[in-house]
């Protein structure tokens, strides 16, 4: 697996998210109240809403378009809704965040 540096954990507010542009679409990167980190496709299984824009609570996010609640750990919809998005491997080294994409890639940090 090849890891790509995407920035620092401090770039993301607690209970918040940022997105990363990749050749295969946007990836949403989350930071919970307790500094756990997650990455999933930024695309709600319902109607493609940008999950990175939702409200983060516990280890879940509520989609801003129609309030589906998606688990950050599995990418699966919670509650009565059915569907899932891909979870992307992510790791934290010190303060640095890395995600693993299928192909070789290098990140440009946003200024």
């Amino acid at each position, binding site marked *: 697996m090849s890891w790509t540096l995407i920035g620092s954990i401090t770039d993301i507010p607690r*209970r918040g998210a940022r997105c990363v542009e990749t050749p295969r679409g946007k990836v949403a990167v989350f930071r919970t109240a307790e500094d756990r980190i997650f990455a999933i496709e930024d695309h709600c299984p319902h109607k493609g809403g940008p999950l990175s824009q939702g409200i983060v609570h516990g280890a879940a996010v509520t989609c801003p*378009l129609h309030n589906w609640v998606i688990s*950050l750990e599995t990418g699966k919809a919670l509650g009565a809704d059915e569907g899932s998005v891909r979870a992307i491997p992510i790791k934290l080294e010190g303060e640095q965040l890395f995600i693993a994409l299928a192909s070789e890639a290098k990140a440009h940090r946003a200024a």
Partner: protein
Amino acid sequence: MMENLVVIGNGMAPGRMLEHLLETSRGRYAVTIFNAEPRVNYDRIMLSPVLSGEKSYEQIIIHGDGWYIKNGITLYKGHKIVAIDRDAKTVTSDHGVVESYDKLVIATGSVPFILPVPGHNLPGVLSYRDLDDVNAMLLAAQSRAKAVVIGGGLLGLEAAAGLEAQGMDVTVLHLMPTLMERQLDPAAGYLLQRAIEDRGIKVICKANTKSILGDRKVEGVELADGRIIPATLVVMAAGIKPNAGLAKAAGIATNRGILVDAGMQTSDPDIYSVGECAEVGGHVYGLVAPLYEMARVAAAHLADGKSTAAFVHNDTPTKLKVTGIELFSLGDFADGEDRHEIVLRDASAGVYKRLVLKDNRIIGTVLYGETADGAWFNDLKKKQVDISDMRDTLIFGQAYQGGTPLDPMAAVAVLPDDAEICGCNGVCKGKIVGAIQEKGLTSLDDVRAHTKASASCGSCTGLVEQLMSLTLGEAFNPTAVQPMCGCTSLGHDDVRRLIKAKSLKNIYAVMQELEWSTSCGCAKCRPALNYYLVCDWPGEYADDYQSRFINERVHANIQKNGTYSVVPRMWGGVTSANELRAIADVVDKFNIPTVKVTGGQRIDMLGVKKEDLPAVWADLGKAGFVSGHAYAKGLRTVKTCVGTDWCRFGTQDSTGFGIRIEKFMWGSWTPAKVKMAVSGCPRNCAEATCKDVGVICVDSGYEIHFAGAAGLDIKGTEVLGLVKTEDEALEVIVALVQMYREQARYLERIYKWAKRVTTDEIRRQILDDIEKRRGFYERFIHSQKFAQVDPWSERVSGLHKHEFKPMATIGIADAAE
């Protein structure tokens, strides 16, 4: 012949190591210790009680001078080792003493992290590591002056409590939003902050230290936001780093600390390392339990070259050594989908307990206020006990297996007698309970008749019923309340009243005091709580952006494809050639696909990319535009007709009045959106009679309408009343909206609120009771002082930059490299 064992450092880890070694292999080594501090081995954990005056230095000595003599150990006090010669196998001290070794143990501990800000080396800036620091602090404390502690972690808070106990006026600066964030979740961090503040210590979180001020000595600390905190003593407790410099200079492998294997051996087989300077299995440690474990392992290897003793990582519980504060934290307490949490809050006792479970086993624990069961939870975690059988009662602790759950009415039970329950009629808890008892009241109507509580807007009905249940017991059967969400059993009205009655001023306070069943809330309750707090504590509550819906976070409306729409304010629906030109230029420059006239008499630009928003606002701002709040649960538009300016039927200046209302009220947050209109005559071209608030101008004055709807429901407005002057009309409208702001449930439009409260009651409070109206009006004006800031220009200036650009871009071109 005895081998020479040389130990560099005389802290708790090497002290313990020597004790083990003397037990198993007395006589094998001639031991020499070099201590950079001019004293014997003492208990560093007990420095805080020394600082607070609860213990003396003598009481915390572990090994007195006699111990070294009795055991034939040579101790060089005040000798710092400056070089290790691994070829000659010697060490050299700063006083020139050279000692040769067969085995060497490096236990140089850690050094405090000193923020590299200007002024960090001024006299009066101290760290908090050893007895010298404590003595210096005690000396400074004699002045009874002001002290600042930088760092709200374990060490910093202990230092702050100690200095406060010595009579200093202490402020703690902490970079993160909650105290001890590495050991505590935000809920427990809130309780801790409250307890610390109760002792008279000021706490400033999110405090970024910019510089330490002073000419020849410390005079104060300046924060990045410009605040200056005067101080004659500054204690840096912002963390520690392993002291590995000496080992590194001698060519021993180091990373963050001195690298050792599980047997505590460094890259040089004759050299071991223990304590805070050692890095084993990727971890460095600062708490005593693992350091003692290192000591045990190193002693075993020094005693027997073939020992298999190995250091194993174990989570160590954290406790705070401040008298009167009970706090315990262990393991991993983050939540997640494969994890379950059990939360117990007891608001009256100030208790918060949280267990994090995975596969029916405890993986993390946070206890606040009552920590007696910490050891038991630690034991269950260590042994990986399956807790399925005791799951329901686990949180009550070992002694209470089989205990009953807490009383759901606890929050009301603990309210003081003078807590105001009914805001409309100013009725306190004591009066209600007294009336129930003295007059033998048994129904809600009786209570309303005798006390007036819950007799007006009715939003305190739930609380009054809970008081009746408390007083009357099972004899009273309250009506069911719809809970706000799955995190609480309280309804919106109860929560709103309790926020006021208990002076709860942040989300963590609400969740703790009202005994929320989750640690972090959900997407339903968080935006509601945020609104209630914004509304109830203007100027005091810091808006929690992460609890706002995306539209209110980025001040634009999200569209189905993830782009946004932008609607600038057009006051009263009036525009000009310059404004239209600016909009046209923005549309061209940013390739905005759709431009549409809205139903609220303004212009909507649809399909703006999120990254472009700040630049779009910057251009619009140059033409004088501000945000139209078309995305907000707040004041949206005030539609107008042209009134006496142009219209041959106009009776008043409806355009001017609409603009006046909009300029007066923009920026205010409300439970749900508020749309208004002013028509200049009863022909009603501005369609004021289906708005949340509307005005129909007539010859004799202004007819005020409200509670209309033209959305999911269609409903004509109710008439509130007729007033003679524009000034009076403005005051009535503002008071009405403020009453709605203070009483309605989140997401409840005015017409639904009015139906609950009744038009008569609203009319009584706004039109008949002049004093009450004035009160609402004044509170709205106060609130506007903090609300009328254009969110667009704030963001053009760089606020919340992170919202508008991707964190990183991974391109295809890069992928090919």
